[in-house]
């Protein structure tokens, strides 16, 4: 548990979009999927997921509809809209650029060695 990383502000939305980009999921499912694709490396408080979900729905990036879970419980399923897919692409690119830049900046420089 203790080796889980705190989320950077703003990254939860990106993770949610990524998680539902593979298939429609309910909230708990999104949480499991994020754990699965991140190798359980990230610490996310369960309830904190939902304000993000509602925000994304309001922005038109996600679409929500009620359905039945694999163990027969009524749950709300989320899937990407076209706008959501586009946003995921853009955010992924910009994240990668940022991550690369930070990684480059943090990499040991020759003069340090």
């Amino acid at each position, binding site marked *: 548990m203790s080796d889980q990383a705190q989320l950077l502000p703003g990254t939860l939305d990106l993770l949610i979009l990524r998680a539902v980009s593979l298939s429609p999921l309910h909230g708990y499912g999104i949480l499991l999927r994020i754990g699965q694709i991140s190798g359980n490396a990230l610490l996310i408080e369960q309830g904190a997921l*939902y304000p993000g979900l509602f925000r994304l729905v*309001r922005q038109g990036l996600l679409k929500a509809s009620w359905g039945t879970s694999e163990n027969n419980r009524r749950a709300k399923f989320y899937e990407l809209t076209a706008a959501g897919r586009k946003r995921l692409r853009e955010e992924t690119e910009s994240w990668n650029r940022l991550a690369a830049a930070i990684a480059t900046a943090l990499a040991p420089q020759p003069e340090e060695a």
Partner: protein
Amino acid sequence: MKLLSSLRLAIAALFPTLFRRAQLNAEVDEELLAHIQLRADDLEKTGLSRKEAERRARIEFGGREKYRQEIHQASGGNFLETFAQDVRYSLRVLRKSPGFTLAGVFTLALAIGANSVVFSITNALVLRPLDVPHPESLYELQHGNEADGSRSYLDYLDLRERNRSFDDLIAWGVAQAGWSDTGEEPTHQWAEEGSGNYFDALHLQPYLGRFFHAADEHGPNSAPYVVLNYSFWQNHFQGDRNVIGRTVQINKHPFSIIGVAPPGFHGTLLFFNPDIFVPLVDQEQVEGVSTLNVRSVRSVFMVMGHLKPGVTLSQAVSDLNAIGSYLEKTYPKDEGKMTFDLARPSLYGDYLGRPTKAFLAGLMLLTALILLAACANLGSLFAARAADRAREVALRLALGSSRRRIVRGLFTEAVMISLAGGTLGLTGSVLLLRSLSAWQPFPRWPIHLSVNPDATVYAVALILTLASGLLFGAVPIGQILRTNPYEVVKSGSIARAGRRVGLRDVLLVVQIAICAVLVTSSLVAVRGLARSLHSDFGFDVNNVILADTDLSMAAYKSDAIPAMQKRMIQALQAIPGVETVGLIDAPPLGDGENGSNVFTDATVDLRPSNAIADPFLFKVTPEYFQAAGTPLRSGRPFTWHDDKNSPPVALVNQEFARKLFGSETEAIGAYFKLPDGTRIQIVGIVENGKYASLNEHPQPAMYLPILQSPSSQTYLVVHSKREPQQLISAMRTTLHTLDAGLPVGIQTRYSLLDALLFGPRMATIALGVMGLMGAMLSITGIFGMAAYSVSRRLRELGIRMALGAQRKEVLQAALGRPLRLLAVGSAAGLILGILASRVLALIVYQATPRDPLVLAGVVIAMALLGLLATWIPAQRALLVNPLILLREE
């Protein structure tokens, strides 16, 4: 500008998506619970008990309430919750200052109440269309050169046959008839006499039975049918459906009841409520005389009809004018210039329509001013309060509240006060309007006027309420937005003493000016009415009782009429205490005066355009002048020998003599001619009087002996110093023993003036109420300002007193400013009021603001108001105890 933008801000904050919230709440709950269940399912698989699994799942999930709030925020703010919080908070705040709240609610209740009453009356009289099918195309034919629509029946027939603009034209008149349905003594009832096509052309369907139709008319007295007004049917026959077919007596002529008009229809005059509808061709039976075949007598009250589709007003008018000039040419002896105008029939065209509209427009303006003054008043109260609450606001800002939220809270307070005030005001006005609708201002006239509010009125009241709430709520916004928490918390209060002229000062001056306008107007109106009651009518209003009847109602004819009139005079003369009894066919300033063209003795061609004057014509007995108190200036009075066998004579008034002969002395003994060619000698001159209205200029009038020109219309004028009620009942018994079948109305001379004085009286009452409201508003306004000023400067005053200031200086420091503002506002209001009073002069007789009494009255009234309003604050300032005050800090 700042005010406007903050207003926009507040409206935007108040009304986003309102009603999705409850549904969303339920959904969120379900979704969060589903999450916990799903998590619990997984935990259960690891071997935990269900109970333990659910507990763990809830703990892992975190604070559900917190997330729910965040979700609301994320999906567009949580309007309802914050709104409810705002309302709760405002209620708490308002409850803590009940004086302020009550003052606000009461002020606004007055203003909104006044506005809804006036608007409701305007709505009923002017805005709401007549309750008949297709009211929009119904027009009355009015004379082009006067606000009157009466014309002769023969002209009506020509207009009906020759016009190409109307679907059909209706003629109708009004008459009072003796009505008896079970053989008991007859009663006065009001009849609307309509042309045969009356109901058909109005597209009405009977409630019961049938209407009369054009096909029922076959010459004079050929259609003895009567249609009952719905309310008359209800009141008189208790809604008995078997009345159809029953025979009743109208003026002792048999008529059969054929139908009942639909409920809500009471003719096309808004305020008139006739009891029965009869065919106009029966005029002789209903009125006792027939003028239907005389082209020079305007026996039809109104001609109206629906315009054909596609015909414009100007097309119709030129069509009618063409017929008019044809009639002028064809009947030069009977017709003067004949032009037309079209008007709405509901207020008798422009005759009542124009003054009514002018009056109501003026009234609406004044009530709008009252509302504005109330808003100014509340605005300055709110601003003062906001200043006092600066510390609270600063604290809330420092603790992280947004300015937007604080502003919204203030608006909520303002709107809640305005809603409470509006509700109270509207309730009061509904009650008032209800009693106004049931009011019968003139006992003799069947007045019916529903001014009850409808949906439009409620909507307008609501809009006014919300608008004024937002308006006065917006006043302190700038103050709040400028608040700097650090400064306030540091210094204890906003130090802004000795500031230049501020928003509050301007508001107070505006408000006082408006109130002074109202006070001025009301004083002008009251003075005008008082004067018009004491002006010279040309007859005595005191000690005179009138008994009016029409002998045709009991079927008296030709020679029986003067004989009966003489018997009535003698019988009344015999009552103890009666001094003189005179008789006149229709008294001046009564229900309607007759007139006739007159010609100089030399005129041969007696066509209307050659007439030298159109004086009022009264037919009287010799004793009339003494009984009525109309002084004879020169010449001789009539005698009972001025009858059919002696040469025709007349008494004329000074104006008649001046107009025809240049002077009174020339007139005595001179001759003039009536339209039928009769030469009449003037034997005496009487004083000028008022004949048709209180504010008319001197008009020519002539009096003819009733024996020479008989009339069945009879007003017995009884002069006596006896107590009126006793005398009236003695007169009633006396006349009843003479002929029990003759309906007689008895009243004092004074009460006959009621109808004429109605307009001025209403104006005076309305303006008086407005003046009172204005006065109350100025008291609360000045009081608020003075009290605030004293409380803000209490510490300073205490220091001054501790340093030895005199009472006078303390008062000056504390109240100088409010009193100066009062003076400025009153002066401005007085000047405006004087200018506005010109408008008043249209309604109120002799309304002139250049009346020292009015001017002095306004100044004294405003000064008294100022004194009254500053009394309590002044006491408070004087009772300041510097020791206690300084210790407190």
